[in-house]
C-alpha cells in the first residue's frame, strides 16, 4: 500500500467571521511525526477540527488533500473512512453507549466493507490493546468517556487510534492534563503504531511529550501561520527561549 500523504495548502479558516488560520502550509507523510507547537490562540485546535471537518469552522480558502483527494468535499465520517483520525483534546461523553460497542461499531464503519469483524476476534484485539495501554478490562463496559478522568480520556483516544488503525493521525494536545507516567504510556502507545503507513501530527503547547515521541519535524504556529520549521532542536530552542523570543524575532 502506498504511503499516506496529507497536504495542507494556503489554508485560511474562520470561526464566526473571525479569521484564525491565515494561510497555513504543511505536508505530513507516512512514517513521519510532525510536531506543531504554538501558544494559546495561535490556531492549533482550529487546524485539528478543520482537518476533521467540524461544521463550525469555515474554510475560506486553500486546500486539504489526502492522498491527492480533496478532503474538504468530504463529511467527517468519510474522512475517517479514508484513514484520518483525530485524538480529541476534549473527548465527548456519550451516556448509555459502552466503549466496546462504540469501538466495534466504529471499527466496522471504517474497515467493515461487508467483512465485519467477529465479536470474538474484536474482543481479543481490544483486550490486547487495552493491556498495552495499561487500561483496566472493566473499562470496555463503561459508557463512552462518561465519568472518565482526564488521563483515562486521553488513553482511551489512543486506544481508539490503536484499534482503528488510521493512516494519518492528528493528536490535539493529547499531553495536556497528563502526569508523567500517563504521558509515557500514551507516547509509547503512539510509538508502537509508528510505521510507513502512519503519519502523525502532534499538536502541543509544550515540548514535554516530544521527549518521548521524538518528532522528525517541528513547526511553530503563531497567529494562524507556520513561522518556522525545523528539526527536533527547534523545540528545545523554543523551550529555552519561550514563544516571546519568536514573536519579537518576527516583528523585527
Amino acid at each position, binding site marked *: 500500500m502506498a504511503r499516506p500523504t496529507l497536504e495542507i495548502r494556503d489554508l485560511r479558516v474562520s470561526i464566526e467571521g473571525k479569521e484564525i488560520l491565515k494561510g497555513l502550509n504543511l505536508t505530513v507523510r507516512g512514517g513521519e511525526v510532525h510536531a506543531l507547537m504554538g501558544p494559546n490562540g495561535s490556531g492549533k485546535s482550529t487546524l485539528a477540527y478543520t482537518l*476533521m*471537518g*467540524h*461544521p463550525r469552522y469555515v474554510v475560506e480558502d486553500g486546500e486539504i488533500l489526502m492522498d491527492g483527494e480533496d478532503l474538504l468535499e468530504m*463529511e*467527517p*465520517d468519510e*474522512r*475517517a*473512512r479514508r484513514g484520518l*483520525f*483525530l485524538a*480529541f483534546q476534549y*473527548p*465527548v*461523553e*456519550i*451516556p*448509555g*453507549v459502552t466503549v466496546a*460497542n*462504540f469501538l466495534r*461499531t*466504529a471499527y466496522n*464503519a*471504517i474497515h467493515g466493507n461487508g467483512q465485519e469483524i467477529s465479536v470474538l476476534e474484536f474482543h481479543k484485539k481490544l483486550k490486547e490493546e487495552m493491556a498495552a495501554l495499561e487500561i483496566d478490562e472493566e473499562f470496555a463496559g463503561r*459508557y*463512552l468517556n462518561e465519568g472518565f478522568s482526564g488521563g483515562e480520556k486521553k488513553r482511551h483516544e489512543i486506544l*481508539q487510534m490503536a484499534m*482503528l488503525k488510521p493512516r494519518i493521525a492528528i493528536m490535539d494536545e493529547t499531553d495536556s492534563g497528563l502526569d508523567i507516567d500517563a504521558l509515557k504510556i500514551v507516547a509509547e502507545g503512539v510509538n508502537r503504531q509508528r510505521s510507513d503507513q502512519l503519519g502523525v501530527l502532534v499538536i502541543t503547547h509544550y515540548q514535554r511529550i516530544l521527549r518521548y515521541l521524538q518528532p522528525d519535524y517541528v513547526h511553530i504556529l503563531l497567529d494562524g501561520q507556520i513561522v518556522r520549521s525545523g528539526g527536533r532542536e527547534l523545540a528545545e530552542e523554543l523551550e529555552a527561549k519561550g514563544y516571546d523570543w519568536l514573536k519579537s524575532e518576527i516583528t523585527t
Partner: protein
Amino acid sequence: MTTQTKLDRELIAALSERAGEPAWARERRLAAWNRFVELPVPAYERTRLKDSQFEDFTPSPGAAPAGAWSDLPAGLRAEVGDPTGRALVVHHNGAAVYRQGPGLPEGVIVTDMATALRDHADLVQPYFLTRGEQGLDNKVAALSGALHTGGLFVYVPAGVNLEIPIEYIVYLDAAGAGVADYTIIVAEAGSQLTVLETAVSDAGAAGAARFGLLDLYVGEGARVVCGNVQALADGVQSLVVRRVVPGERAHVDWVAAEFGAGLSVNEMDSRLEGRGSEVRALGVFFAGGQQHLDLELRMIQTGRETASDILVRGVVKDRGRAVYGPYTLIEHDAKDSTGFQRGNTLVLDPEARAYSIPQLHVVEDEVQGAGHAATIGKMDPEQLFYLQARGLNAQQARRLIVDGFFYPVTDHIPVDALKHRVMSLVERKMAT
C-alpha cells in the same frame, strides 16, 4: 360489510346477553355506561380529546376464533414471533380468538374475560368493575368497562410464583373498528407474576379505535410486573387506563412503551394504600410522523412507608408530539414515604414537540425523600461530530446516541423479552 352501529344502553345490554354473562355483570356494565355518559371528556393538559373520539367508530363484533396458530393473520404472527412454549392470549378486532399455554400451576387461571364470567363468576365478581368509586374513574375507563368484548382474567393464588410471563396480544386490522377490552389481574398475597401486553395492528386498521381498561389487584407482599407495548399503526387511536391499589409490602413494576398510534393516551394510576407498598413506573416513548403520544403516570400515596418511582425517557422526531405527565401526591399521614420522578426527552427535529408536565405534591411533612427532575433537550452536535470523526455516518451516529439515551430505562426493564422488544422498536423507529 360493516354498518354504523349506534352506541347506547341497548347495545351494551345486547353485548352482555350474547356473551351469556350473569345479570350482575350486565348491571355493572350498564352502570359503567351511565358513568361514561355523565363523565366529562378527560382534560389532559396537552392532549385535547373531543367527544368524537368516543363516537366515531363502529363497535366491532370481533373476529372469528382461530383453531390453530397458523390460522391467525400473518401480520399478527410476524409481530408476535415464535409462539413455542409461550403463554399467549390473542385478541383480534376485539375478541379473544386464540389461546395457548403450557401447563400452569394448580389454581392459576388465565382466560379471556367472557369465559371467566361464565366459568369463574364467583371469583370474578369481587373485582369486576368495582373500582369506579375510588377516584380512579374516568370516561375511558367507563367506556372500556361498558363496551368490552375482549380482555383477560388472570388469577394467581397466594404464594404461587408464576415464572412464565402471561402475554396478551391486541391485534386490529378492521378499518374504523372500535374495540374495547377489560382485563383483571389478581395476584394474591405472596404470589409473583409477569403480564405483558402488546397492541399491534395492520395498516388496514385505519380509523380504528382501541379503548382499554386494566385493573390490577396485588395482595400483601405480592410482586407483579405489568408491561405494555403499544405499536399500533399511525391511523389508529389508543386510549387506555390501567390502575392498581397494591396491598401491604406489595411491589408493582409498570413498564410502558409507547411507539405507535396516531393519537395515544396511556394512563397508569397507582394508589399506594398498603403500608410499605412500592410502585415503580418505567416508560419509553417515541413519537414520529404526525403522532401524538401522551404518557400519564399517577402515584397517589396514602399509606405509610410507601415508595413510588417514575423513570421515563422519550424521543420525538419529524412532526411528532409527546407529552410526559407524571403526577405524584404524598398524602397527609403517608409518613416515611418516598416519591421520585425522572424524565428526559430528546428532540431530534425542529418541528417535533415535547411537553413535560411534572407535578409533585408532598402534603405529609415526615417523608423520607421526594424529588423530580425533567429535561427536554436536543441532540448535542458535539456528540454527533465525535462519532462521525470515528467513521459512523450521520444516521448511524444518531442511532447510537438514541440507543444510549434510552439505555437508563431499557436497562432497568425487568423482563428480557420485553427489553429486547423495546430496543428493536427503537431501532425500527429510527429507520423510518
